């Protein structure tokens, strides 16, 4: 099996396209950081840091200078008011509570919020760059089986003394390995770029665990988010892998996977108010929603997400394996 994965890995990286995609991913990560630093840094409030040359029109709509303590106090008062309102949903209540507690914690421990982009905040925001890594993994996952059919090499591959399920497994492992590699590349690139372009504030991430606010190292936090995102990449890869094993044309497989992947969010949005949305694959293709609190569909939880995703994974893999091992090769 190791040799088979070695084969697939070699074929993957001997293609120019694979390298181009990797370079794109790195450039995109660097580009995002660049845009944040030089173009839209003004979004991060006043230039209290002093060393960043953000030019701002004086006066204007900006309220007179407030200290961060005043801002946090105002925030707490506002949340208090909101919490007293009637008919709050449980999720809303939880969210206001969380925000209020974090503000209180900042005041108590004298921890000013980041007033501008720091290495730490970039690390956490870089999680969105993983969408690119996911997309690349879809391309690879959809193409790894389909391209053998497109190029006609499948008949050379399947007339070896290796059973078909072993070949498929080696391809699946290669795709998952690729997904992890892309996540690691994104993480390392963002860490390096984040610490070069931005100043480190040295603060920890403030985490609300439901009862109280705790401090968490930024590294652990970002690794946690990346881990959740890696699971996203895995499940999306297996989905694209299934499409690629069913459709024998490379372009078609990649196209269909991408299309369905992009449409997934829209479908979830339209079915938002129906119970069925809780059992859709696409409701759970982003697991970081449970970590950041921006849950897509109310009433879904991480355990439910894992349960639903596991069922889908079993179905997707079963389809891939059955189709691939039973098929008559006529290519």
């Amino acid at each position, binding site marked *: 099996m190791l040799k088979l994965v070695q*084969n697939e890995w070699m*074929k993957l990286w001997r*293609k120019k396209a694979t390298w181009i995609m990797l370079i794109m991913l790195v450039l995109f990560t660097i580009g995002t950081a660049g845009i944040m630093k030089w173009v839209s840094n003004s979004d991060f409030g006043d230039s209290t840091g002093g060393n960043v040359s953000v030019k701002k029109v004086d006066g204007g709509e900006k309220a007179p200078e407030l200290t961060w303590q005043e801002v946090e106090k105002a925030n707490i008062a506002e949340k208090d008011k909101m919490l007293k309102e009637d008919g709050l949903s449980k999720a809303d209540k939880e969210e206001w509570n969380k925000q209020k507690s974090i503000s209180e914690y900042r005041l108590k421990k004298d921890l000013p919020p980041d007033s501008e982009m720091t290495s730490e905040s970039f690390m956490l925001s870089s999680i969105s760059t993983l969408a690119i890594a996911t997309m690349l993994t879809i391309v690879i996952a959809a193409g790894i089986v389909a391209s053998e059919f497109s190029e006609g*090499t499948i008949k*050379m591959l*399947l*007339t070896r*003394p290796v059973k078909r399920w072993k070949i498929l497994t080696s391809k699946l492992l290669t795709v998952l390995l690729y997904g992890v590699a892309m996540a690691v590349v994104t993480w390392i690139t963002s860490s390096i770029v984040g610490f070069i372009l931005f100043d480190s504030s040295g603060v920890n991430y403030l985490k609300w665990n439901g009862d109280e606010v705790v401090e968490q190292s930024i590294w652990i936090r970002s690794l946690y988010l990346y881990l959740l995102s890696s699971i996203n990449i895995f499940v999306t890869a297996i989905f694209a892998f299934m499409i690629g094993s069913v459709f024998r044309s490379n372009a078609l497989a990649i196209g269909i996977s991408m299309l369905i992947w992009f449409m997934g969010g829209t479908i979830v949005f339209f079915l938002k108010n129906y119970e069925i949305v809780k059992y859709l694959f696409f409701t759970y293709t982003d697991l970081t929603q449970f970590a950041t609190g921006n849950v897509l569909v109310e009433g879904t939880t991480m355990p439910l997400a894992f349960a639903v995703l596991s069922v889908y994974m079993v179905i997707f893999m079963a389809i891939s394996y059955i189709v691939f091992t039973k098929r*008559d090769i006529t290519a």
Partner: protein
Amino acid sequence: MNNKPIVELKNLSKNIKGKKIIHDLNLALYPGQITGFLGPNGAGKTTTIRMMVGLMKPTSGDILIDGQSIQSHFEEAISKVGVIVENPEMYKYLTGYKNLEHFARMNKNVSKARIDEVIRQVGLEKRIHEKVSTYSLGMRQRLGLAQALLNKPKFLILDEPTNGLDPAGIREFRNYLRKIAEEDGVAVFVSSHLLSEIELMCDRIAVIQNGKLIDMREMNTNEQPHYYIEVESNANITTIFADAGIVYEQHEKGWLVQAEKKQIPAIVQSLVARDINIYAVNPYHKTLEDQFLEMTGGGQIAETSSK
């Protein structure tokens, strides 16, 4: 020669979408023998070959390779087989060497030395480290043969192997096949449209039509000797043949007579005695093409027999 067949097709049938593509095919291939596989387009050659290498599953019947079923013992059975199915499609973005390395990893006992050995055998030493995308068709065929030989197969199955080879390459290829068949006792199964090629290469031929094996014959069995005789056109030659009790038929501008070599002087003398001008008397061999057309009735595309 060994009498135990290395490959046996037993009551092999294949239905595709309700149509019977292959009917109850039985065939045995023996070590050291080169068998040609002929049939008009659509007769089921490729389907048969694909079933023999496990790319398609038979609807019923089985294929035994060295006594092991390709269906229940795929890995054991196929490890004794070398395959080129139609054009050998290699990974174009890899070098020839990487391609061989790739396929070698999928076999249990293929060493680096063995890779180098097959490269030498197919004469690709000079270009083996270049990408396959830069290869000519003939070089790809050679690489295809190299990958088929990697595992020292006991049974070599080739679909259109000489397609794209130059005349020197074809001859070399033919001699090489002969050599491994004779020296290593490899059973070779070749399908080709080039009948003259099959004729030069094979010990026997199997002919398939409409999914059925219609003929199986040894190539060097002595057919009835024929002579081609061409005389002046207005000669009343048929009566002479009839009088002499010779079987004859019209062929091109002259006549084809079935006669032994020793009968020829007498025929010529009788023609000369009647003052008939003789333009040509040649020994005549029916080519495989003639035989093939005779057997398959013109070789039109086989009609799909539905059931």
